């Protein structure tokens, strides 16, 4: 038998813990179970099990539980050819029971403790009101977790739509001038639509466009990610190579490694990184030849820390 995963409070996801502790056994069990009485002959037990597709029946009279009779007991009786015997002679009398008010977590731990496939459930007055199987637990858990997941998903949707806040990632490809500027243009439009100050938008546009085109012109491709909050625009660009041999040179205005073709398109004047750095409030660059380049540029939206007009 497969072991149950560790469902302890400390290690389980909170959603699961919440579900198994807030659900009562009463809401999971099968109520009004089929029962047999102590004097029921075993031949009738065989018939009931076959008719209802169950492998165990509680033995009860007027709600009082006397024992449980399982398919294993029945097999033994069949082998002995004693189907006429009453249930009272064949049943298990010392039955482990659960109570309606207990949390589902209790049922789960009881199932991991004992090798039984079902437990009778009693109410506060010790009367039999239901029976619980592993199947009942599975069905109920799946349903409840599905509800939780849809709840989370609807929360995610509502976070994306309103307002200025935005997280977006764009891909760039080597020498893909056709799409060069797409990311920056999209982000600029978003900021304008949300009434961000024009001079701040211009600074974001400059940093973003220069870094984006640097990837198109110089790198073998990468990503450009934006994290926009009401406080700041954070641009993170990461490429897969080839990396910059001397970052200080790259940050010097006029220094360029671009070829004539790139220059003929109006790029590669050695202005890109210096421009991006000039308009950013925070600018960080790390590059490793053969590995790639990462640049982070942050522009604060709250107060204009850089006084110059972009």
């Amino acid at each position, binding site marked *: 038998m497969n072991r149950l995963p560790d469902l302890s409070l400390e290690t389980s996801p909170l959603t699961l813990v919440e579900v198994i502790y807030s659900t009562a056994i009463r809401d999971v069990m099968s109520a009004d179970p089929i029962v047999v009485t102590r004097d029921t002959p075993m031949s009738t037990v065989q018939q009931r099990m076959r008719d209802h597709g169950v492998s165990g029946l509680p033995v009860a009279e007027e709600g009082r539980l006397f024992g449980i009779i399982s398919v294993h007991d029945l097999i033994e009786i069949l082998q002995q050819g004693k189907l006429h015997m009453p249930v009272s002679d064949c049943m298990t009398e010392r039955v482990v029971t659960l109570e309606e008010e207990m949390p589902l977590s209790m049922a789960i731990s009881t199932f991991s403790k004992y090798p039984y496939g079902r437990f009778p459930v009693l109410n506060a007055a010790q009367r039999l009101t239901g029976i619980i199987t592993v199947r009942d637990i599975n069905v109920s858990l799946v349903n409840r977790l599905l509800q939780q997941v849809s709840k989370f998903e609807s929360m995610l949707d509502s976070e994306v739509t309103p307002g200025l806040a935005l997280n977006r990632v764009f891909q760039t490809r080597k020498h893909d*001038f*056709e799409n*060069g*500027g*797409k990311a*920056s*243009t999209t982000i*600029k439009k978003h900021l304008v639509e949300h009434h961000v100050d*024009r001079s701040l938008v*211009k600074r974001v*546009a*400059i940093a973003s*466009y*220069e870094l984006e*085109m640097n990837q198109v012109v110089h790198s073998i491709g990468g990503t450009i990610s934006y994290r926009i909050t009401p406080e700041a625009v954070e641009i993170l660009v990461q490429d897969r190579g080839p990396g910059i041999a001397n970052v200080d040179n790259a940050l010097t205005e006029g220094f360029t490694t671009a070829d004539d073709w790139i220059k003929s*398109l*109006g*790029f590669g*004047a050695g*202005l*890109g990184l210096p*421009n991006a750095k*000039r308009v950013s409030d925070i600018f960080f660059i790390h590059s490793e030849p053969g590995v790639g380049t990462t640049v982070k540029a942050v522009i604060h939206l709250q107060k204009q820390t850089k006084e110059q007009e*972009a």
Partner: protein
Amino acid sequence: MKLTEIATTGNWETLQNASADADVNRAYTSDLLSDVMAHAHDSDILITIQAHNNTVAVASLAGVQAIVICNDRPVPGDMLASAQKENIALFRTKANQFETSCMVGKMLEV
């Protein structure tokens, strides 16, 4: 000066006339897109020989209202389409950057 007025006054071919009746009062002449990005202003006219899609992207990001392509350089279809999409006017002239700058300077009375 209104953009529509400029379109009809200038000695150029109008490839795409912006629909918005925007005001323009300055111009910037450069063939380096990073330079344009850094120094062009909102409501500028951009005078350049860079006849390709990325010029429109830079113009849009910098807030440029109109682009004048000098030396009668051929304008590719995708550039024209981008200009239409971004609502940026696009003119083409036989004159070079200097001559065009002088012409626009006179129009704007700079």
